Structures are given as structure tokens and as C-alpha cells.
């Protein structure tokens, strides 16, 4: 791929416990716009740490991450940047159980300065993308695990992000449901040109990606 990198990771290191635990060791990585990258590795290899650092949820001990030509420290300081440019999907879904599907997807839009009608329209479109139109007003408690993850994906998509960061999104799903979710990610990546960075330890996920890297003991292999 010859496109300009969307994300550039330069000599990134992350220590924990006052420098006693090294989670990432001088990682260098480029992720291009529209790419579907899988980061694989065993538990404790540092893959979730890398994802959290890219998402600005954690700060590096050394090195830098660039979003296009600006460091993420600079861009994440901008109000609404994470809201408008990033989407997160986690293994545990983190849905609000007292809300229905539509309301969960509306959560990011509560920060957006749009009219209520536009917010509803966007949320319904996102729900349509994950094929849950018929469950729009169902409580998320009444959904299967696969459907819940679809709701989480719709929530990540609703603001039209450039980048989706997925942390073990199929970790709680059976193999058939996991495959459906991977197909959904692939379809979104191809249709919407959204960049996807997915952390997983499942080999099957590699089939759906454009590229994969392996992390071991905090280093790219």
C-alpha cells in the first residue's frame, strides 16, 4: 500500500510499576488509511497496551505516535477529536444495560452538536450497517452476545470514525458468531474505507485482515 500512513508509531515503549515491567519495547509501526490490521500475540504480549496507546487511553513512557502528521498528544487535546475520529470495540461490549439498542448507539451522539432528528438518523444508519434494524427498540439484555457486539460496533461507527480500534472483539463469542462479526468488520472496512486495528489472539482473524503483525514480549516479531 502506497497511501500516507494514518497512524505512525515511532520507538514506542511503555513501562509499568515504576519501570519494573516492560509492556512495549521500542515498537515501530505504520498503519495506512483504509487498512485492516490485526495485531496478534499471546496474553501479556503488549498488544492491548499498544491499542490503548494508539487510542490515547494511555500515555507512552518513550517514543511517539502520530495521527497523520501530528502527535496524538496534540490531536487528542483537541475537543471532540476522539469522538469524531475514533471508534472503540471491546471484548466486554460495555453497553448500558438499562438502554435499548438505539439509545446505546445514541450515546456518542449526545456529545455531538446535531439536531435530535439528525442524531436519530445517524444512529439508525449505524444500526442498519450492523443489520439490527429489527432490534432497534429491544433492550440489550435481551440480545445474544453476537448481537450485543454488533450494537457495540454500531456505537463505534455512529460518528463516522476514520479508525476503529477493536480489542479482542470476538473473545466472548462462539466460533460461528465470531466469524459473523469478523465478516462484518471486513465488510465495513471495504465499504466504508474505515481503518481497523484489531487485537486478537485468534488465528482465524488473520484471514479477514489486509495485514497482521505479531507481538511477543512487547516487541514486534
Amino acid at each position, binding site marked *: 500500500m502506497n497511501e500516507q500512513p494514518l497512524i505512525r508509531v515511532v520507538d514506542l515503549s511503555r513501562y509499568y510499576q515504576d519501570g519494573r515491567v516492560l509492556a512495549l519495547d521500542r515498537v515501530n509501526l505504520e498503519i495506512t488509511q483504509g487498512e485492516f490490521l490485526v495485531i496478534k500475540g499471546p496474553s501479556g504480549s503488549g498488544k492491548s497496551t499498544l491499542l*490503548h496507546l494508539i*487510542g490515547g*487511553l*494511555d500515555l507512552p513512557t518513550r517514543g511517539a505516535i502520530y495521527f497523520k502528521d501530528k502527535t496524538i498528544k496534540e490531536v487528542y487535546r483537541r*475537543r*471532540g*477529536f*476522539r*469522538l*469524531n475520529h*475514533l*471508534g*472503540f470495540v*471491546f471484548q*466486554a461490549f*460495555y453497553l*448500558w*444495560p*438499562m*438502554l435499548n439498542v438505539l*439509545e446505546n448507539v*445514541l*450515546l*456518542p451522539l*449526545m*456529545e455531538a452538536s446535531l439536531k435530535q432528528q439528525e442524531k436519530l438518523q445517524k444512529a439508525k444508519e449505524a444500526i442498519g450497517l450492523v443489520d439490527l434494524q429489527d432490534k432497534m427498540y429491544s433492550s440489550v439484555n435481551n440480545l445474544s452476545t453476537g448481537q450485543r457486539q454488533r450494537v457495540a460496533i454500531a*456505537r*463505534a461507527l455512529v*460518528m463516522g470514525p476514520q479508525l476503529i480500534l477493536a480489542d479482542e472483539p470476538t473473545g466472548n463469542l462462539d466460533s460461528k458468531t465470531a466469524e459473523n462479526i469478523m465478516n462484518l468488520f471486513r465488510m465495513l472496512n471495504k465499504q466504508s474505507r474505515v481503518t481497523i486495528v484489531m487485537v486478537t489472539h485468534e488465528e482465524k482473524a488473520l484471514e479477514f485482515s489486509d495485514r497482521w503483525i505479531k507481538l511477543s514480549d512487547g516487541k514486534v516479531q
Partner: protein
Amino acid sequence: MNLPALAFKNLWHRKIRTGLTILGVGTSIAVFVSLVGLASIFTDAFRQMYKLRQTDLVVREKGNFDFLSSGIDEKYVERIQQIPEVLSISKILIDFSAANSKNYFLVLGWEQDSGLFSKLRIVGRTLQRDNEALVGAALVKKLKKQVGDSIEVKGAWFTIVGVFESKSMFEEGSVIIALDKLQKIKKVPGKVTLFNLTIQKHGFSAGRPVSGKEQIERVRSLITKLLPDIDVRGAEEIISVDNSLASFLNFAWAVSTVAFIAAILGIINTMVTSVLEQTSKLGILLAIGWRKSRILLLVLDESIFLGLLGGIFGLILGYGIMNVLMLSPQLQNISRVNYNFIFMIKVILVSLLVGFLSGIYPAIRAISIKPIEALRYE
């Protein structure tokens, strides 16, 4: 969906905890409503009584603000009558009497030609002999008496010659007998509890017209100079310095303050537990780009809702308690529950404030959550 709707749904999701918190806050608010409400009932009853009697000034014993035990010499009337602006003076002696082992009523000693009788609507006739009594309509109903029956007042028997209605609930629950008779029974000859003065409102001072307020103040000052050993106050002032009322109000506020602190601690406990339980859910909101100020408002909205719902429940419970209390023999003839809209609004505002104050600490805790730690929490 907006922030208050999300806060409400969040509370609704934890029905039992929310319900128990509302119950706790409501009980605290009910304590405040019933105690301060009762105090205000008494104050209003006094105010109404003074208004009915067209009281401008009340003359009482100096240094004794408890009307039951205060006593002044009735001969002072002659001195006060020398002031031309004083239109009328009514001597009043006040006491309580037991109707039976449970019931008490107010006994008022009035002169047989007192102008105060003109403020009453009497069925029957006024007092002519010292063994006659007028009984208030509320009391007569309670004691199941009628004109012609006898009534015992502090061990002496009186014939009921009239039943009266008054705009003052205090008076309607009382028995009026001749002043000198009550002085004999109470063993305070020549003494009265107070003089009720009505003042000529319009007049001139130093050649210029004076307002009613200035006139009353002028007469008050004249009486004080004339009789330095007595106490002269306006009706409003006398209500505010009344020892029994002031003590009850202080007690009401002290208990209410403790109740409010308990309510605040109750909400803080509920909200801190809620924030801790929702760490990961609040964390995801931060991760997807919610501003901290919005999280702060979400938690504050929840605690304000708890305060508001507690306030509404407390108002209902408090007025319920007041109604039950007013059924007691000691209170039933004094006044009735006054559904004061302004007081209710104040209670709701206080409840909102309790909710807001209680939400501050949990809200600060919520915004100090780091998304990365929150996501690891579950």
C-alpha cells in the same frame, strides 16, 4: 435521549436502591416538613388571632416571654388610656384547663364588656354572670356539649350560655369566661397575661402626617416611657420572641439539620456505590469522547433526581404526619394543617439543593476515573 433521561433511566435500573434512598431522603424531608410545618401552623394561628383582634401592640410582663406565666397589673390600663392615640385596650388572661384525662383546652379570661366579643359570631348570648362560659365551636363539638350544658374549667363549673365561631382556630378551641373569675381560679387577682391595644393609625406628629407604622412606634415609645417596667411589642415581634414558639422552632431546625445531614450522607453513599459499580460504563463514555463535564452533569442529575423525588415523597409523608398529629387531643383545637404552596416550593428547592450537594463528591470521583483503569475494572 438527553442527559436527564439517561440519569433517570440509570436510577430506574437500580429500582430497589433508588427506592430505599428516596425513602431515606423522604423521611428526612418529612421530619423537616412536619416539625417546621407545625411551628409555622402555630405562628400562623397566632398571627391570625392578632389580626382578628386588630392588635397593634401587645403589653406584657417585661423579661417573661412565656405568655402562660407572664402577668401584669391590670391597673396599668388607666395609665395607657391617657395616650389619646390608643383606641381600645382589652385585658386578656390566658390559661389551660383539662377537659378529661386526655383533652386540654385554652381558657381565656375577658372582661364582660370587652370589645373582643364583637369579633366573634355567637350563637346564644355573651357573658353576664361570672359562672357563665362561652365555648368555641370546635371545642363544643369535641366535648359534645351545647348551650345550657355545664362545663368544668380548672375545677369550677360554668353554664354554657353561648357557642362562638372565630376566624382564629386558637379561639375556636377555647372557653371564654369572665376575667375576674379566671383571676380568682388562677389565684392571680388584679393580674392579666396581656393587654391587647388597637391604635389610631392616622395622625400628625410635629405638624406632619405620620404613617400607621410610625404612629404605632410612637405610641409604643410613649408607653415604654410611661411604664418602663413592662414590655410593649408589635404583634409580629411578639410572635417571633415567644419563648415556646422560638424553642419549638429551634428544636425543629436542630432535628431537621440532623435529618438533612443523614439525607445527604444517604445520597452520597448511594451515588458513590453507583459510580463504583459503573466505573467501566463511565470509562467507556470517556473513551468514546464524552467530556468530563458531561459525566459530572450525569452524576449530578442522578443525585438531584434522588433529592427531588425524596423531596416530593417527604412532602407527602410530612403533611401526612402533620395531619395525624393535628388529630391528637392536644392539638386538634389549636389549628388545622395549612397547605402552604410557598412552603412546598421551598421544600422542593431545599431537596434539590440536598441532591446537588450530595452529588458533588460522587461526581468528582466519576470524572477522576481514567478510561484505561475503568476498562480494566470489569
